[in-house]
């Protein structure tokens, strides 16, 4: 059968079931948008995790003038104590790297993160503690060793595993991600079922044509191709709509935030991720519709 004939058959089929086709396109678009959102949420979380976990390890806060007296009975840390702590840290095999952060540096960092915040006017460099930022070779296991060694040491106010805070944050985010996936997958199932129905209806409404085609000996491919094409059309248009929706969301919301608040620029995914998600959605849209159309037709177009 000539390709132009297949295309024109598919077009007739789509036109004849306009309402159904529109419904299928919309449901596909919504389902893929939700699925795409789940994809992006996952990716965003992995990105955040990499970002935070890469930066934050163990902080050893040193005693300052305002420190708690139980852990710092002798007042602020002395130069000798500071040097001792640094030397001890560097000697530990579990420690990969040690950064020293002075009060001034801590203040600069705070200023950067709390831009425009009213709090900024109350905070002075002296209010912030100086610290050693420690990167561990193997953060999961080595933390307790390092913590027990330095907790209570002279001049150390406290040892904080920043990861523990992040873990709590990510536990909450994990729930969010699980919900996003659940919604995405349920929507995808709805899409599969609706496309199956649309293809069935198309096959039913054209049973005269397909009957005659079988009768005169049209190949199975010729009979199925128009239906496959209809399915692919629904999948592609749905995927394009879903991608546009994700782009709109990204540009209007996230990108706007990124422009306004520089800190977010580093935290949020870039447009590349949206391209990636759009590609995945297109693949899923086409793949799912082809498979569903093909399987859905087997029963209908038996020789």
């Amino acid at each position, binding site marked *: *059968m*000539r390709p132009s*004939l297949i295309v024109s058959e598919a077009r007739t089929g789509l036109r004849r079931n306009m309402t159904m086709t529109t419904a299928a396109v919309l449901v596909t678009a919504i389902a893929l948008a939700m699925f795409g959102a789940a994809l992006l949420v996952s990716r965003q979380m992995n990105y955040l995790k990499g970002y935070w976990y890469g930066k934050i390890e163990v902080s050893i806060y040193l005693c300052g003038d305002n420190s708690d007296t139980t852990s710092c009975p002798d007042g602020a840390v002395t130069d000798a104590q500071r040097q001792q702590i640094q030397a001890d840290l560097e000697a530990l095999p579990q420690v990969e790297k040690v950064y020293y952060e002075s009060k001034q540096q801590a203040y600069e960092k705070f200023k950067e993160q709390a831009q425009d915040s009213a709090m900024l006017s109350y905070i002075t460099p002296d209010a912030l503690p100086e610290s050693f930022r420690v990167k561990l070779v193997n953060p999961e296991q080595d933390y307790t060793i390092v913590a027990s060694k330095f907790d209570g040491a002279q001049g150390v106010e406290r040892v904080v595993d920043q990861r523990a805070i992040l873990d709590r944050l990510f536990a909450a985010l994990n729930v969010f991600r699980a919900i996003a996936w659940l919604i995405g997958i349920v929507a995808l199932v709805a899409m599969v079922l609706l496309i199956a129905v649309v293809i069935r209806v198309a096959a039913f409404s054209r049973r*005269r*044509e397909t*009957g*005659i*085609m*079988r*009768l*005169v*000996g*049209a*190949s*199975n491919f*010729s*009979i199925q191709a128009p239906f496959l094409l209809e399915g692919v059309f629904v999948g592609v248009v749905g995927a394009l709509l879903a991608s546009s929706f994700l782009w709109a969301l990204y540009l209007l919301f996230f990108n706007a935030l990124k422009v306004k608040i520089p800190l977010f620029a580093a935290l949020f995914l870039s447009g590349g991720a949206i391209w990636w998600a759009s590609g995945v959605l297109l693949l899923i849209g086409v793949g799912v519709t082809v498979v569903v159309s093909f399987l859905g037709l087997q029963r209908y177009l038996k*020789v």
Partner: protein
Amino acid sequence: MIRFDSVTKIYPSQARPALDDISLEIEKGEFVFLVGASGSGKSTFLRLVLREEKTTSGTVFVAGKDVGTLSNWKVPQLRRQIGTVFQDFRLLPNKTVFENVAFGLEVTGRPQHAVMKVVPEVLELVGLSGKEDRYPHELSGGEQQRVAIARAFANRPMILIADEPTGNLDPHTSVGLMKLLDRINRTGTTVVMATHDAAIVDQMRKRVIELDRGLLIRDQSRGVYGFAR
């Protein structure tokens, strides 16, 4: 051209065989009437030839090939060698006469220039020249059946199967249609026609195969519809 070798067909839901140990042979170029009451197995016979069904036991040969062992994707090849006409015409209502005939050629992959050449030829053969642009509902029953015959014959099949082609037509129109089928038969095409129309069978004096409840009860060359009727 068509050979049945001890063919039995039992449908899953039925105890009595639709065809019971049928053996017969139809030669190339023959014109055969298949007669019998409803449920006698005529339709099953035709469906087996078209490979719409498979035998329960026994073998059906069409053009020397065992159609039972034909793989599914080769079935269309078989059907291109067999033209089929039904009582209900089976035309596409939204296509013209020309398009209906062309559709059968196009979907089997015939190139456009061949379609443009063949369709007017067969329409002339069936006597519908000048009515190419009519729609099926604008034609009489006899004319609609001619369109169906044109479509069935456009591929120049070796076999033409007609399942009660005159069932919806008045006697006068039926006679004209039989003349057309006879003409097609004279081109060398084997014609197998299932019918209830006694007058036509008696008039044509062709080979008659009679089935009764799945059994072959009569195979007579130059036969009539039946004696006790």
